[in-house]
């Protein structure tokens, strides 16, 4: 076992007031069992497996994704499904998404899942299956399904497994307290991941402002099989050391190449909360139905860390912890990267690690935005070593492409620049807007390119068809000329033959041939008429589509194809008719 003090650093960074004591001194409590939980189907591929009126037990699977894109959802309390309807979703947009609402029977009877306390003797496949079933997601805030992340990493060669316990956001202490109270379980979770990924090194990054957690880890590690493999890396406290890219830089000295993922350089990061949940899922057979949430801010009467069942309405949790004064803001997450919600009518979801209710004195509302004086404070603070003042200049002047050229997409939106800005410019907001505009422009460019390709392909095809038609017409004209010449020759020959035999033979041949030709000709004429009608009909539909605002380009394109087909039919019919016509002429 080793504890290393990391001396490496990343560019920039800031030291905002930590305010962690507000919640860290209060210990860990369990929030009261909610009377009702709202479990949003966060991903549109999630399908409910229950119906209104069904009785469910705590931990029972209630929604899954057949394709495995989204993490499973489990009932977090026992009771009855009372609604499956759109409810406000805990997301910056504040939009509503379908949610499963469970009313508690207050029994909290648990659904029995198979547990693997002796997981060391289980196969990898079995463990991955449990992880997938348990609905684990990254609990650090990103909420990415863990099963997908781990399975993806298993395909690659992971050299370094990084456990993120930096918790660099001010106010939040959920990871700190989790380590202090559940160090052994956490180590077991790390061991499971070690077993699955077989990394060469396991590094746990933790800021030096959590001495109790470091001691708890060291104590637990002494008696754990991981002792030889896990390195506790103590980082100097500096925001944003817990940012994935910054943490990788601090611990390995490597940088994640722009536009790539950590796995591309053989690194995988996991948050301590996720690893604890991994332990619960495998060793205890408990799917993800609760999480540790820091409830803090000076407007809270009893700030602290609470084990909260997923889906608990924020309203109810705030009632339990008590609010002193009216806070103007409810922040989900920390003060640097969290987002605000317009009311308390939202549920706690898997990615919520902190509820922050600050008073206005504590976190003053932003002042008036002043002009940028290019003082360069932001540049010194930027952990991505960007030039935020230039990004701002281009973003604010809507020169989005120049902003992209200044590597706008390497911005991690940590907010360090806006924190130091003496002109109080909401820089991150400008960057988000510029990024959204650029993404929109990109989508439109792709669409335009596709339309262009379709148009060009169609033109080429029409040209080809015209050429073919022309060739056919020529061939036909030649055939007619040949036939006329043959006829002339025959007529001359006949003129030389005796009159009687000529008249007889001509008559015979004419009657039989004329009957056959007439029948064929009629058929061909009908076919031509049908083809003409088809072309007109298709053209009329196209006309309707073109005036219809709802018609999609695909529909119009399909219609164009249909017209072309009909025209082709018509051309064929005409060609056949033309071929038949000379025959007819000879008989008449």
């Amino acid at each position, binding site marked *: 076992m080793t504890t290393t003090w990391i001396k490496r650093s990343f560019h920039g960074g800031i030291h905002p007031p930590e305010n962690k004591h507000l919640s860290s001194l209060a210990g860990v409590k369990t929030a009261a069992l909610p009377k009702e939980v709202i479990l949003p189907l966060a991903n549109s591929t999630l399908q409910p497996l229950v119906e209104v009126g069904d009785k469910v037990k705590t931990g029972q699977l209630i929604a899954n994704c057949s394709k495995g894109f989204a993490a499973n959802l489990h009932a977090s309390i026992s009771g009855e499904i009372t609604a499956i309807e759109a409810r406000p979703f805990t997301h910056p947009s504040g939009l509503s998404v379908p949610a499963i609402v469970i009313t508690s029977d207050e029994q909290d009877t648990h659904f029995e899942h198979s547990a693997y306390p002796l997981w060391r003797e289980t196969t990898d496949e079995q463990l991955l299956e449990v992880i997938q079933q348990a609905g684990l997601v990254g609990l650090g805030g990103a909420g990415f399904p863990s099963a997908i992340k781990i399975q993806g990493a298993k395909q690659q060669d992971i050299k370094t497994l990084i456990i993120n316990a930096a918790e660099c956001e001010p106010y939040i202490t959920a990871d700190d307290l989790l380590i202090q109270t559940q160090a052994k379980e956490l180590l077991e979770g790390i061991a499971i991941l070690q077993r699955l990924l077989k990394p060469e090194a396991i590094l746990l990054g933790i800021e030096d402002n959590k001495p109790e957690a470091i001691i708890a880890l060291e104590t637990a590690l002494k008696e754990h099989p991981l002792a030889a493999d896990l390195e506790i890396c103590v980082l100097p406290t500096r925001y944003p050391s817990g940012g994935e890219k910054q943490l990788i830089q601090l611990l390995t000295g490597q940088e994640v190449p722009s536009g790539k993922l950590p796995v591309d350089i053989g690194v995988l990061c996991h948050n301590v909360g996720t690893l604890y949940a991994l332990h619960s899922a495998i060793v205890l057979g408990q799917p993800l139905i609760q999480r540790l949430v820091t409830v803090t801010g000076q407007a809270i009467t009893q700030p602290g860390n609470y084990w909260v069942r997923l889906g608990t309405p924020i309203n109810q949790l705030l009632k339990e912890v008590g609010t002193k004064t009216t806070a103007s803001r409810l922040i989900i997450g920390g003060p*640097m990267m969290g987002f605000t919600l317009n009311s308390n009518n939202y549920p706690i979801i898997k990615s919520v690690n902190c509820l922050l209710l600050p008073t206005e004195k504590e976190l003053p509302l932003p002042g008036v935005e002043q002009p940028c004086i290019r003082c360069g404070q932001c540049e010194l603070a930027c952990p991505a070593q960007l030039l935020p003042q230039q990004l701002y200049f281009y973003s604010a002047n809507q020169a989005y492409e120049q902003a992209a050229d200044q590597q706008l997409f390497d911005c991690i939106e940590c907010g360090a620049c806006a*924190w130091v800005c003496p002109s109080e410019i909401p820089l991150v907001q400008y960057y988000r807007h510029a990024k959204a505009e650029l993404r929109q422009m990109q989508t439109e460019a792709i669409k335009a390119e596709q339309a262009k390709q379709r148009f060009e392909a169609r033109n080429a095809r029409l040209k080809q068809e015209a050429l073919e038609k022309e060739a056919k017409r020529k061939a036909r004209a030649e055939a007619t000329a040949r036939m006329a010449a043959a006829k002339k020759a025959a007529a001359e020959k006949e003129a030389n033959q005796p009159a009687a035999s000529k008249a007889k033979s001509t008559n015979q041949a004419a009657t039989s041939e004329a009957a056959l030709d007439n029948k064929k000709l009629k058929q061909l004429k009908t076919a031509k008429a049908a083809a003409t009608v088809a072309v007109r009909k298709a053209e009329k539909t196209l006309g309707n589509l073109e005036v219809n605002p709802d018609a999609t380009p695909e529909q119009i394109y399909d219609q164009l194809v249909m017209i072309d087909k009909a025209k082709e039919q018509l051309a064929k019919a005409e060609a056949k008719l033309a071929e038949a016509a000379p025959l007819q002429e000879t008989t008449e």
Partner: protein
Amino acid sequence: MTRILLSSPHAHGKSSTSKVMQQVILACLPGIAALTYFFGLGVLLNILLACSSTLIAEAAVLKLRKRNLAPLQDYSAILTGILLGICLPASAPWWIPISGALFAMLAAKHLFGGLGQNPFNPAMAAYAFLLISFPVPMTLWPMVATADQLSWFNSLQGLDAQTGATALDAWRNKGPQMASEFWRATQSLSPLKPLHPAMLQASTYIALAWLIGGIYLMVKRIINWQLPLTFLATLLVYSAFLWGIDSSHYAPPWLHFAAGSAVFSAFFILTDPVSGATSVKGRIIFAIGAGLLVISIRTWGSYPDGVAFSVLLMNFAAPALDYFTRPRVYGHAKAQSGMGSGGKK
């Protein structure tokens, strides 16, 4: 209850533009005190006239542009006035600071869009304007007060007071004289001596006073070390190089350092963020360029001191410097530079 929706971050550090400006003004005080001690109350009068003119001009322009008057409280106009006032000869007539301040605010700042938009340092633009338009009153400095004559009481009388050449001016006008002859002449008792030793002494003390203010700003992290230190280093190295070639004709490095506005400019003029280069590397090049230009103008130009022109010339170069000195961004193997690809990848 409806709550406010805001974009992150929700916390903000304690810095603000007005606090930055206040600190700079505070750091100016030792230098202003030294100037006033040696050159008399005319210095304070210049500053007072320049400041009130910049404030009134800014208020008038904001009113004309139908803007909020809040920028008046950010101290930037006052700072411009102070910096301009400091640069002016203490015996300058009253209309010099006023017209300079009006030029700084109207032409150099608000014609370009106000705070944050000006491509040129307003104080230096105004100084250059005054120097070109009114060369005589702009180069006449009053004689410094010596222990035996409390002339700074009388200096309020302005042009009537005795005037003296500044050290750099005297050096420039020494003509083909050898350095040794020049220094011997300054020690002579003749009233026609080219440079009064007290003048040189005064400018050394003043430079030290500015150095104190500058160090304060660096300690407070209001300004970065790159600009002032690179500028002064360039100044010393380049002048030492010339002096090494021919010590009898080129001024010694210490004269360049102590006399004239080198130290003041290093900490208070070059560090104007708006009109300077913004990347760290860009700032270093900016400072080197300004240093080279200052010595060149002082040595071969037609003005005794060249800070204003050097800074204005480097202001021209700032956008290009920013284009070519971008730092290497996290996750990129190399720094991008130049006009870039225009977003096309």
